[in-house]
């Protein structure tokens, strides 16, 4: 009796401890992307889309009643920083990671993910090096090889047979790999690479000398494989020299649409090959687009759409089986999931199969010229 009374009196002392013992039922996922620097266009859009996906799922009751928590990490377009970001997320015991957005970062982070048995679902990593492997890497965008082949075919269809190319040596698992694949396919099909020029964006070079060095004479078109800021900057320099030559850009070039718009008419007719159609009439996409604009006040880029798809496939797997230890197997068992613009099928290696679109930027708008 006396002992009970003493315990009762000590209860106020224990109150803060008792209150702090509420069991956390939340499920944590991570995001790794380049949120700062010239490559932040993809990362910011991806983060915003994943953020929107998490907000949406939590507002509708979470995953099987458990709230989803997002931990965002900036890899600053640096593989080393990306590794540290992944280690931080592993320490936070995330179930899965959306990202990294860049191929070089994805390649650097994969060993950390494998060691910690954390699945990576990258929205935009497209390096061929991560294709066809039974590992912890999944993605919702097709690898460079397909893009490159598609771009090569597109060029030839547009009667662009001679191409001058400039590409960034940063994020070379995307740029260099993409150019090489393009070159192989293009030349195999009879195209000619008139000149090629590489540069290192980390050194913030002046672009006019690079473009001049590239030389546009004799070229039917110019291919730019760089981040969006540099792509638009280079595009501006090209337009100074040749106002009409077609500019073919990697997907990154359209990532920062406000920069494109700032460029006015100088970048009219820039052509992109994208895995996303911004004019897609599907209700799931238009609804997402409206919500995204309402939430972030800008049009979602392809990176946002793919990041949202990546978040969706993770959530679908979590709904199926929330056990973190079995998450990779669960994700492998998903097969086809409903993407914003249609069903997306992941093969057993976690590589997707989805449609590609040729986009022309004209009068401040994207227009699909071929599917």
């Amino acid at each position: 009796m006396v002992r009970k009374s003493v315990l009762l009196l000590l209860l106020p002392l224990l109150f803060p401890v008792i209150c702090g013992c509420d069991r956390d039922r939340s499920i944590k996922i991570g995001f790794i992307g380049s949120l700062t620097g010239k490559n932040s266009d993809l990362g910011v859009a991806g983060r915003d889309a994943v953020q929107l996906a998490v907000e949406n799922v939590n507002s509708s009751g979470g995953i099987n009643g458990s709230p989803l928590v997002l931990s965002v990490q900036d890899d600053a377009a640096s593989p080393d920083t990306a590794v540290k970001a992944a280690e931080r997320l592993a320490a936070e015991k995330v179930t899965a990671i959306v990202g990294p957005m860049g191929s070089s970062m994805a390649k650097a982070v994969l060993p950390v993910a494998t060691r910690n048995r954390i699945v990576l679902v990258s929205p935009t990593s497209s390096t061929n090096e991560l294709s066809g492997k039974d590992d912890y890497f999944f993605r919702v965008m097709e690898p460079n090889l397909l893009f490159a082949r598609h771009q090569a075919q597109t060029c030839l269809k547009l009667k662009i047979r001679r191409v001058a190319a400039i590409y960034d040596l940063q994020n070379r698992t995307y740029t260099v790999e993409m150019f090489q694949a393009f070159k192989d396919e293009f030349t195999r099909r009879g195209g000619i690479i008139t000149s090629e020029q590489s540069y290192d964006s980390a050194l913030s070079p002046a672009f006019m000398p690079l473009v001049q060095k590239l030389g546009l004479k004799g070229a039917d078109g110019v291919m730019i494989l760089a981040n969006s800021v540099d792509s638009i900057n280079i595009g501006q320099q090209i337009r100074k020299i040749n106002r009409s030559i077609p500019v073919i850009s990697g997907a990154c070039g359209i990532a920062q649409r406000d920069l494109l718009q700032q460029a006015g008419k100088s970048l009219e007719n820039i052509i992109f090959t994208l895995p996303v159609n911004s004019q897609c009439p599907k209700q799931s996409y238009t609804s997402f687009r409206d919500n995204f604009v309402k939430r972030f006040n800008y049009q979602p880029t392809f990176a946002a759409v793919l990041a949202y798809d990546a978040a969706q496939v993770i959530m679908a797997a979590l709904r199926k089986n929330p056990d973190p230890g079995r998450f990779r197997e669960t994700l492998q068992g998903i097969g086809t999931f409903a993407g914003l613009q249609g069903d997306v099928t992941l093969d057993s290696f976690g590589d997707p199969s989805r449609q590609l679109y040729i986009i022309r930027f004209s009068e401040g708008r994207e227009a699909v010229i071929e599917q």
Partner: protein
Amino acid sequence: MKFDLKRLFLLNNLLTALLPIIFIGLISIAAVKSHVMDDHDHNGALLARSLAGQINTYLREPIGTFNLLTNHLRGHDYSAGERSKLLSLLVESYDYFDAIYLLDGRGIVRQAGLKRERLEAEADFLGMDFSGVEACREARLNSRLQWAPSVSISTGEPTMSFCAPIGGGAMLAELKLSELGKIINESSSSRTFTAFIVDKSGRIIAHPEQKVVERKENISNIKLFQDALGGRVVTANLALHDKDLRGTALRIPELGWVLVVAQEVRVAMAPIHALQRILFAGMLVTVLLAMVLGQICSRILRRPFDQLTGIALRVIREDYSSVRSVTSGCEEVRILSETLGRMVDAISARESALNEQTEALMCTEETLRELNLLLEEKVAERTVRLEKAGEEMALLNLDLLKRSTALEDANRQLESFAYTISHDLRAPVRHVGSFAAMLLEDHGDRMDEEGLALVRRIVASCSQMEQLIAALLQFSRVALCPINKTVIQPDRLIAEILTELQGELAGREKEIIVHPLPECSADVILLRQVWANLLGNAVKYSQKSPVTRIEVGAEIGENEITYSVRDNGAGFDMAGYGRLFGVFQRLHSARDFEGSGVGLAIVENIIKRHGGRIWAESRVGEGAEFRFTLPRERQTSDEAAVDSRAPAQV
């Protein structure tokens, strides 16, 4: 419920110390919390207003400079080189400008003023198309200065663009938003507040940490921002960067931006947490103090109790010598100690007395033990003797049995002999008597007087002898006849016998009382003989009394019924009692009272054969009382018979 003093003191101390602390503490925390939050919100609002003013001031300067430059260029016709030089000079002179461009009517850069470190990229910017920059579009459309957030074409970072039309073209300046971050950082760092600016789309465009701006974070979903965008000064909690913040937000009307001034709830609540820590520490110290005080108090109070317990234990061990009174300042303990001392003295005294008694008892026990031994020896000795006596007695009994058997045989033979003799003698005696009577009658006249007298004596003797033989025959018959028991009402027998005795009683003054008599089990013929002999004797021996008084009664014993016959006749001398029941024994002469001397012997014989006893008491001249017993066989009916009848007087 079991508890000790230590716990009792602890509980008491905890109750008296903790409860007031808890109640006062909780009230204080609530009051301080309210005060701190009010104070915090007030300070946040003040800081936000102050910062908004500073931001306006900060922007006013570049806008003023920009306007001044615009007007200056409008008023002077500089060459292209001079314009470039002027722009570069201005950008170098004013840190807040990142770059200044002069655009032609199509929005193409014609001259550019850049920071020194970017000068080598000047060629990139010249000829660049900025016609799509929002501020330029707005300025061209409105023909006046406009500003709008944009993205730096060189760095990709967020920036603020100012654009004003000049002639047919325009002047575009990029303002470093990082400078805004510095302003709000300087203003808020000393107050542990974080201030940041959010554009109308919800994107953070200025923050003490430039990385936050670079990350283009958007807080349009936060209610604080939404409310502030509507023009209100709002204070609320918000979660940002994994931190819980308490923020105040207001809209800067001139810019359309929202300024948020926030502080971590943890920091804002620091005074409350400190107070909570103080309270908890106080409670902890109080608990510890209560425990220590409880321990001390319990020790102080337990010490005399322990001593008292020690005394009690020594008393239990019967060690009274070392019992001393316990010293304590506590009056109750002193009284308890004294009482215990007196109790010990009393116990000691009682134990001494008890010891003495025990010793005495032990002595007695020893004596008893010795006596017991002696007794046992004697008992053993006597047992041996008794056994011997028993054996002797058994031998004697056996001998007696043999003798008794022999005697009974002899008696039976004697009775048989007596019967035979008396039966056989009866006829000759009767013949002698008859012949003597015939001789007297037929030949009396021929005999002289002497002869006549002799013959008469022969006749008389024969008659007497015949009576004796008859008596003897009767006695023998009684002894030999079998007993056939039936239930008998003695009253009826007595009534019949008294009727038969009426002849002898005739002419006497008499008083005969027969009390109610219980029935008995006996041979009716023999018992009638008993009553007839006893009543006959009573009538006979009271014939000389003036008044014949006879009383018949009975008493019911546990196992037997005692009948009595008392008279007031001649009585007898008890000295001759031994012959009273002998055959042919008489205590009176035949002259006084005739009789054969066999009657009482017959009575005794019959009573004995029924398992009873007979005895008599008498005094000469005062009558006699004869009492005899018969074994009881029907107790209930006997009692009922006696109780229901009244005595009868004849």
